[in-house]
C-alpha cells in the first residue's frame, strides 16, 4: 500500500532487503539474485559489454537466450530503464521489427547466443552473463519503468501489453513465514505472463526458483526439480499432463501445485490429487491482458458462481454474452503501439474466455474465437476434451475441426492414453467404443467426435498451451 509521494520499492531494492539467500537455478548455471544488492550481471560475458548507465532511461529489449539472464536483467533494470520489453524465445523473426517499432526499443540486453540481426543493429547493446560481480558504479536516477509483455496468441503478430510493476505484483500477497523456505519451480518460461508471475512471487518472497530450459526433456526437468527439492510447482494443465506421464514425477513431492493458462478440468485436478495426496492443489485464472483474477483451491473444476458480480480482493468480474470480463488493479494499462483499447469504457477487460453456469459454479467452456460450427450448432473443443479426459485410460486429448462436405465441420479427437501399449494393442477398438460411449452419455449428439485416433503425444506450444491447429 503506497502513501502519496512514497514510491514502491524497485525490484533491486526489494531483493536487497531479503534475508533469504534467493537462488535462481537454470540447467547450466545458477545465480544468487540477492547479490544484486551490491553487484551486477550486466556488462559481462561478451565483448560488446556496456554499463548499467548506458541503459538508463531507455526502452530496453531483453533478448538474452536463457531465462536466468533475463531474470537478473529484470531485477537490475526495474526503475532504471524506461521500458523493459520482455522477448519470449518463440517470437518469430518476422515479428521482431514490429515489436521494436511498437515499443520504441533503443537498447538491448543480449548474451553470446543472441543472433537476431535487428537486435544486434540497435544503438546500445549490453551483455548479460549468469554471474554477479561487485559493482562500482552508482545507480542511475530512478524512473517509472513500464514492463512490456507479449500476448500468447498463436496466430499473427503478438500484441505488446504494458504493465507497471505494482499491477504485475498486485496478486502476490505477502508470504507467510512458511514460504521463506519455498523452492519454486515452473514449467513456464518466465518471459511470458504466467511464468513472470512465478518469478516475481519467488523473488519478492525471497524464495529460490528452478527455471525451465528450452528443449529440456520433461524427465530431465523433473529430475532437476527433485534435486533442488521443489516445494511449489506451477504449469499449464497440458504441461502437468505431460509431466504425469513421466516416471520422474515420482521424484518430487511439492506442497503446492498450481495450474493456470488453460482450463483445469476435473480429470487433471484428480490426477494431481492422486499423484500428490498431501499437496494443496490450486488452479488460477489469469490472462496476459487482464492479469490474475482468482485462485480456486477446493479441488474442483470451475469457480464459485458468487465470484461473478462481486468484488473480491479488488477484482470485479462480469459475464457479457457468455464471455468473462474483468476489472481490477492487476490488469495491464494498455497495448503499446497503435493497438485498440484494452478495456471497455467501464475499465473491464474482455478475456474472450467463455463461461457457462451449471448450478452454483461457472465452468470455462473455451475460447471465443475457438468455436467450431457444426451445421449451425456451436461447439467448444475444450468441453469435449473435458469429457474425454474423464476416461480412466486417457491422459490428454485434443478435439479439432475436420472439414465435412455435409455439415461444414465435424469434430474429431486425438487422444494420448496413459499407457502407450494400449494405443496399438488388441483392446484399442474396445477402448475407442468405450470413450465414445462416455461422450454420448455426457454430450449432445453433434458434440460426440465422429472419429477418434490414439496418438503417442500431442504438441504443446512454448506457451505451455496445447497447440490447436487452425482449419
Amino acid at each position: 500500500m503506497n502513501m502519496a509521494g512514497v514510491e514502491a520499492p524497485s525490484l533491486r531494492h526489494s531483493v536487497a532487503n531479503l534475508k533469504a539467500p534467493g537462488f535462481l537455478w537454470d540447467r547450466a548455471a545458477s545465480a544468487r539474485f540477492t547479490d544484486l544488492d551490491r553487484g551486477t550481471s550486466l556488462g559481462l560475458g561478451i565483448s560488446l559489454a556496456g554499463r548499467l548507465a548506458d541503459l538508463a532511461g531507455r526502452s530496453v529489449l531483453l533478448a538474452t537466450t536463457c531465462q536466468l539472464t533475463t531474470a537478473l536483467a529484470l531485477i537490475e533494470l526495474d526503475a532504471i530503464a524506461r521500458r523493459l520489453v520482455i522477448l519470449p524465445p518463440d517470437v518469430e523473426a518476422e515479428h521482431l521489427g514490429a515489436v521494436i517499432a511498437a515499443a520504441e526499443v533503443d537498447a538491448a540486453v543480449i548474451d553470446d547466443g543472441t543472433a537476431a540481426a535487428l537486435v544486434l543493429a540497435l544503438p546500445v547493446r549490453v551483455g548479460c552473463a549468469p554471474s554477479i560481480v561487485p559493482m562500482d558504479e552508482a545507480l542511475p536516477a530512478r524512473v517509472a519503468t513500464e514492463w512490456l509483455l507479449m500476448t500468447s496468441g498463436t496466430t499473427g503478430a503478438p500484441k505488446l501489453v504494458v504493465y507497471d510493476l505494482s499491477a504485475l505484483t498486485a496478486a502476490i500477497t505477502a508470504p507467510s513465514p512458511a514460504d521463506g523456505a519455498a523452492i519454486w519451480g515452473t514449467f513456464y518460461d518466465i518471459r511470458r505472463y504466467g511464468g513472470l508471475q512465478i518469478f516475481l512471487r519467488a523473488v519478492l518472497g525471497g524464495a529460490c526458483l528452478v527455471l525451465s530450459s528450452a528443449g529440456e526433456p520433461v524427465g530431465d526437468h523433473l529430475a532437476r526439480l527433485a534435486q533442488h527439492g521443489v516445494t511449489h510447482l506451477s504449469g499449464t494443465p497440458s504441461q502437468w499432463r505431460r509431466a504425469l506421464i513421466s516416471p520422474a514425477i515420482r521424484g518430487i513431492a511439492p506442497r503446492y501445485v498450481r495450474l493456470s493458462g488453460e482450463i483445469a478440468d476435473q480429470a487433471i485436478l484428480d490426477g494431481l490429487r492422486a499423484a500428490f495426496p498431501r499437496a494443496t492443489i490450486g488452479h488460477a485464472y489469469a490472462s496476459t491482458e487482464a492479469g490474475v483474477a482468482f485462485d480456486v483451491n477446493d479441488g474442483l473444476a470451475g469457480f464459485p458462481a458468487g465470484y461473478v458480480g462481486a468484488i473480491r480482493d479488488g477484482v470485479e468480474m462480469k459475464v457479457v454474452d457468455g464471455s468473462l470480463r474483468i476489472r481490477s488493479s492487476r490488469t495491464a494499462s494498455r497495448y503499446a503501439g497503435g493497438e485498440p483499447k484494452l478495456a471497455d469504457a467501464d475499465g473491464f477487460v474482455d478475456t474472450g474466455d467463455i463461461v457457462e453456469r451449471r448450478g452454483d459454479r461457472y465452468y470455462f467452456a473455451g475460447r471465443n474465437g475457438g468455436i467450431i460450427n457444426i451445421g449451425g450448432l456451436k461447439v467448444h473443443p475444450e468441453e469435449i476434451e473435458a469429457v474425454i479426459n474423464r476416461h480412466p485410460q486417457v491422459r490428454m486429448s485434443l478435439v479439432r475441426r475436420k472439414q465435412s462436405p455435409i455439415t461444414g465441420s465435424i469434430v474429431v479427437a486425438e487422444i494420448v492414453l496413459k499407457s502407450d501399449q494400449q494405443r496399438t494393442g488388441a483392446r484399442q477398438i474396445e477402448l475407442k467404443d468405450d470413450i465414445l460411449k462416455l461422450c454420448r452419455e455426457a454430450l449432445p449428439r453433434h458434440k460426440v467426435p465422429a472419429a477418434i485416433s490414439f496418438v503417442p503425444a500431442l504438441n504443446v506450444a512454448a506457451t505451455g498451451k496445447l497447440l490447436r491447429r487452425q482449419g
Partner: protein
Amino acid sequence: MSVKLTIIEQMEQIAREHGKILAPLKEDLVLADCGLDSLGFAVLVARLEDSLGIDPFTAAEDAFFPVTLGEFVKVYEHGGR
C-alpha cells in the same frame, strides 16, 4: 471386407449410436429417406475416411452428393481405385 459392406456396417452403427431407425438398405434407396440425418452422414463420411482412407466428397472439385445408396457406394468404389 468389401466397400459396400463397410459402408452398410458403418451406417447401422451410426444409426444405433444416434438412436435412428434405418430403412431397408437397398441399392435404389434414396439417401435422404434412409433414416440418417445430415449429422449422421457427416459422421459416416468422417468414419469412412478412417476405414477406407478416402473422402471423395471433400476431395472433389465440384460439390456433388449422390442421391441413392447405390450411387454412394459407387463413389467410394471409384475413389478407392
